[in-house]
């Protein structure tokens, strides 16, 4: 064990400041470079805003206190850890607030979301539901009919 006097420890601290500063500047410089490259490569609109636009019509059709079921391209009920379905559901919920969207095919209203913009025809909410409105972009509303 090497014991240093106060002066030597002060020098050690100052040396550490120089080392820390260099490492921090390298790290923050790299972060700034990577982040600004991400920014330059971004599209005209971020993906969340794009998805918000897909669900714009939902709040026009449904009342604010509506609770809506959800179906997707995958067979219902999709597994919890299916990232595609869970992502679509979460994006839809974020856009549709205060409407609540649940993973339940027995609701009066069903929101159908397909990753294929022309894939509405493949969505199958069940025999008692009919297509009410195609909101475009692979989003459609179904309603149970008597």
């Amino acid at each position: 064990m090497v014991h240093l006097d106060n002066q030597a420890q002060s020098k050690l601290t100052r040396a550490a400041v120089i080392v820390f500063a260099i490492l921090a500047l390298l790290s923050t410089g790299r972060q700034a470079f990577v982040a600004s490259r991400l920014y330059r490569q971004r599209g005209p609109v971020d993906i969340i805003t794009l998805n918000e636009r897909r669900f714009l019509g939902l709040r026009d059709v449904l009342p604010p206190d509506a609770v809506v079921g959800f179906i997707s391209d995958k067979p219902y009920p999709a597994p919890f850890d299916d990232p595609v379905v869970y992502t679509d559901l979460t994006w839809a919920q974020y856009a549709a607030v205060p409407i609540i969207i649940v993973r339940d095919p027995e609701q009066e209203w069903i929101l159908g979301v397909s990753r294929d913009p022309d894939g509405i025809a493949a969505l199958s909410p069940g025999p008692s539901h009919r297509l009410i409105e195609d909101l475009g972009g692979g989003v459609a509303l179904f309603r149970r009919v008597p």
Partner: protein
Amino acid sequence: MFFSIALSLALGFLLQSFFRVRLPASQWRLSLQLGLSIGWGVGISSYAFFLWTAFISPTGRGFLLFEAGLLLAAGIALAVATRRARPPIEDQDSASISVLNEIGPILLLGLAAAAGLSAVAFVSYAAHQPHGEWDAWAIWNQRARFLVRSGEDWRRGFSVLLADYHPDYPLLLPAMVARIWRSADSETLLAPIALSMLFTFGTVSVAFSALGILRGRWEAALAVFALLGTPFFIYQGAWQYADVPFSFFLLSTLALLCLHDHFSPRHHRLLILAGASAALAAWTKNEGLLFLPAVALAWCASPWLSGTKRRSLREAISFAAGALPGLLITLYFKLEVAPPNDLIAAQGLAVTIEHLSDPSRYLEIARGFLSQASLIGFSSEATPGRFDGWGIFPVVLPVYWLAMRVSRPARAQESDQAKASGAVLAFLAAALMLAGYILAYLLTPYPLAWHLDTSLSRLLLHLWPTLVFALLLDSARPGEAGASRADS
């Protein structure tokens, strides 16, 4: 929007100034107060907005006027208290200390460059994903939207039907974002981005200022470099998650407790502020309800471990008094508004015992911690949606601390036992939090590997600013007086 944020910050600054914190007057103290104002201002505004929504007007009518009135009242109260109170500790040396002069131009340039580059990174990340990342749109900003869009039916956002999105999570961020949106009459994305930026750089500011007061400019500078040089810290802040704000309150609480021990052990105002800060941690994330008992336990135990004077009942009462109002609001939210927590509700005793006695779960958790090591260092490429990792400071800083500890003069004594106790307090609080997190993983109803993979990094991030503070508090040379002298 900027007016409403400024109103909050002004309120935070005034209310904490009202406590006439007995620290030596210096620019370091002003710097600390400005940093703490962020947490205080946002905290008080979010408490007030929630209570106003719950009891006065769910549509928020009249709230901004109320807050402006609160600011005026706080200003008048402070002016009156200032006239009546004893003068602050006037330390001739510290009163004349200019932080900028003390740091010096070269170090100042380095700090400014690191801060500037971090700001560029933050803004670029935020502009690339202005809605934030997953938790921001699935939890925090989603909840804010419910508070704003639901009107009279504001409790809708806490329905059990939304269980996937954790409607039981506390409301510091959602309430503050909703408050700004209401006052701006627009759901501007700048609101959560601005809040995240304040907390990210506010955390750095608190670490810088507290260490500047307790130790000196070198340790203060090391803290800034270590935090800004942690890519995950900047990236996570820009993602608009609650983890960085939570880490802010952990650090603030511990810094205030250390400052109390060192500067004003006979006066308890810093303890009241520390208690309030701990309560704000519980209002930010559920982990705050673990932090409160952890910090209380660590605070009681640290004198025993460091051989300093034991805590008194009066001190404990002061800390509790600071925590109580915020804690009551959080408990009201938990008991009367929020549904049960998913981690707690899903467990029965038999399952709990089964999980605790399953050795594979312990191995899985150990694997999860070990996998964090692969995130240390400079990664080769960053891709959208993937963070850059921990950088190099989780290795470099402990090495520095170790080097300072082992190289201390053989017969040197820590001339300031209060600071030794402060470091022990911070280490112990962090260790207790870590133990709590491990227990939560053992008992989780979710697939353990998935839960570790999606949350462990963020839980460790809660503790990182505190660890930086503790390591630097403990690594200074014995007899180092810091920027100001103690209250004698």
